[in-house]
Structure formats: C-alpha cells, structure tokens
C-alpha cells in the first residue's frame, strides 16, 4: 500500500473512531430497556459484520487458491483468516458482557451464541493449521475456510430458525434517528479499518513468503549457510 494512502486511511480511522464514539455516546438516544448498556451494541454488531466479511474473504480466496494455486490468493486468505479470529474474539467477548448486562449471565447455549462460537473456533482452527500444519497445510486450511463461509447463513439466520435470547435480525434495519446514524457509521468505519488491516496483513504475508523463497534460493546457491 502506498504510504500516503495508508496514512490517509489511518487518519480517517482515527477521526472515525472519535466520531462514531461521539455519535454512539452523545447523539444516539438512550435505550428504554438497557439504558446506557445498549452502547455496547454499536461496536459489537459492527465487529460481527466484520467477522462475516473476513470469513467470507478468507473462504472465497481459499477457494480461488484451491482452484488456481496462486500464492497471492493464499496471502489474502491467511490475512483475512487472522482478522476473522480477531473480530470473532471481539464479538464473543463484547457479546458476553452484553449478556451479563441484559440477561444477567455471561453465557448461554443459545443458537446465535453457539453458532457464532463454532464459527470462531473454525477460524481459530484455520489459523492453527496454517501456523503449525507444515507443508501443504494451506490446502487443508482452505477447506476449513470454505466450510466456515458456508456456515455464515446458519449463524445469521439462527435467531429466526430457533427460539433464542439474542435480538432478531430485524433490530438493525429497524433503528431510527441517532441510533441508526451511530450504527451505520460504526459499520462503515470498521469496514475501512478492516480493509486497512487486511491490506497490511496481506503485505506482511507476501513479504514473509518472498523472504522464505529468497532464503531457499540463497541456500541452494550456497550464498548462505
């Protein structure tokens, strides 16, 4: 990524975080049921969307890699996989704290919570296989990523399929006024932040791969020991 573009995106993110927090805490109306605790919602849901986006990116690029065997696809898949683990951890932890505030319990084996945990564990599995699987692990991990992507509709519609404690999918489209502005600006901001992190991590993955290739060549040429 060009340095100027990176700096511009970083500035947008920094200002955006300040702006969305202002909208969430000062402009959005106070919820009539959860009061101040509802403020968790704005970043929790945005991170859930990013979990889906990162998992889908990982799944799509893994599929492309499995079909075309282009290392650049694999670099993007790896970067997106790690980001899915990050966003998933944020979603599960903030969701658990939300659960304590709303239902007075940290965890419940509710359909949405359980399917989200399974999705996150699948992505943790993807990263672990990539890290410790050795040669050829990217193909095995690719299959896991495709499996995780196929699971996303199940996670999203779990609140409609089963009776759950978790709010329905209609909550976000039904928001009005300040709540709506805070919600969608948070989603947009986390979207930009996700793209920025994805680009940075992809560059790092690419550099790691090239460095490993260079080291092998230098070893073969007898330039290094």
């Amino acid at each position, binding site marked *: 990524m060009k340095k100027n573009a990176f700096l511009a995106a970083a500035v947008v993110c920094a200002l955006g975080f300040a702006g969305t927090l202002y909208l969430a805490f000062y402009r959005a109306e*106070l919820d009539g049921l959860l*009061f*101040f*605790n509802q*403020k*968790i919602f704005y*970043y*929790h849901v945005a*991170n859930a969307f990013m979990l889906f986006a990162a998992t889908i990116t990982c799944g799509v690029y893994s599929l492309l890699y499995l079909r075309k065997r282009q290392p650049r696809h694999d670099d993007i898949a790896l970067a997106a996989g790690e980001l899915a683990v*990050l966003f998933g*951890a*944020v979603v599960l*932890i*903030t969701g658990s*704290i*939300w659960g*304590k*505030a709303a239902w007075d319990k940290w965890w419940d084996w509710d359909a949405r919570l359980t399917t989200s945990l399974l999705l996150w564990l699948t992505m943790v599995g993807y990263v672990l296989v990539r890290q410790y699987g050795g040669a050829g692990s990217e193909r095995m991990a690719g299959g896991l990523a495709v499996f995780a992507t196929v699971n996303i509709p199940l996670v999203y519609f779990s609140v409609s399929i089963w009776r759950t404690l978790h709010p329905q999918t209609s909550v976000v489209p039904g928001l009005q006024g300040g709540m709506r502005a805070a919600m969608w600006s948070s989603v947009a901001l986390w979207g930009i932040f996700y793209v920025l*992190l994805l680009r*940075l*991590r992809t560059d*790092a993955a690419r*550099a*790691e791969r090239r*460095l490993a290739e*260079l*080291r092998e060549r*230098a070893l073969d040429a*007898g*330039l*290094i020991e």
Partner: protein
Amino acid sequence: MARSTTMMTILGCAALLLAVASTSAALAQPAKEPPRAYQSPMRKDCEAELAKDKGWNAELRDSLRPEVHEAEAALVTRNNKHVVMAYAALWILTVGFVVLLWMRQRRLLAELETLEKKVAKAAEQ
C-alpha cells in the same frame, strides 16, 4: 298450526314463571357484603415489636424512602460498568493485534536486512 301455537304459548308461560321465581328467590336472599381486605392477626404483634425495636423500625422506614428507589433506578439507568468492560476488551484486542502486526513487520525487515548482508558478503567473496 294450532298445536304449535299452543306449544309456544305453554313454553312462553313456563319461561315467564321461571323468570319470576328466580327473581323472587334472588330478592329473598340477603345482599352479599363486599369482601373485606385481609387483615393479618399478627398486625398488632408486629406493631408492638416495631415499637420496641427502634433499629428495625428505622430500617423499614429507610427502605421506604423515595431516595432509595431513585438510587436503585440510577444503578440500572446509569450503570456504565459493562460498557467500560466491553470497550476496554475491544480496544485491548484491537490495539494488541495492530502492535503484533507492527512487530512482525519490523522482524521481517530485520530478517531481510540480514539476508541481504549475507548475500552481499558471499557475493564479494
């Protein structure tokens, strides 16, 4: 035709008699008193006990003060403990990831530099 008219007349008279009988029976019964609110037989004892135990009396009075309920309501409406916990966890994870990414980038650059030096040295020899 005549038979059915007779039958209807008999049935009408019977219904009328029944209505009159049931009304007179209802009027004959004494009017029911509205149910009294329950009064505990322990009330006097409790009042006597409260008069003796000044501390208990004060505690009960305290719990009925509106300020107590306002404080409880404020605990729900202005509780920010969970929000602070959630946002702290979120920032720790996100910033932690960015720092790890930055450290990985630095390690890569250092490795690249070392490799370049080794290759350059080997090429000179």
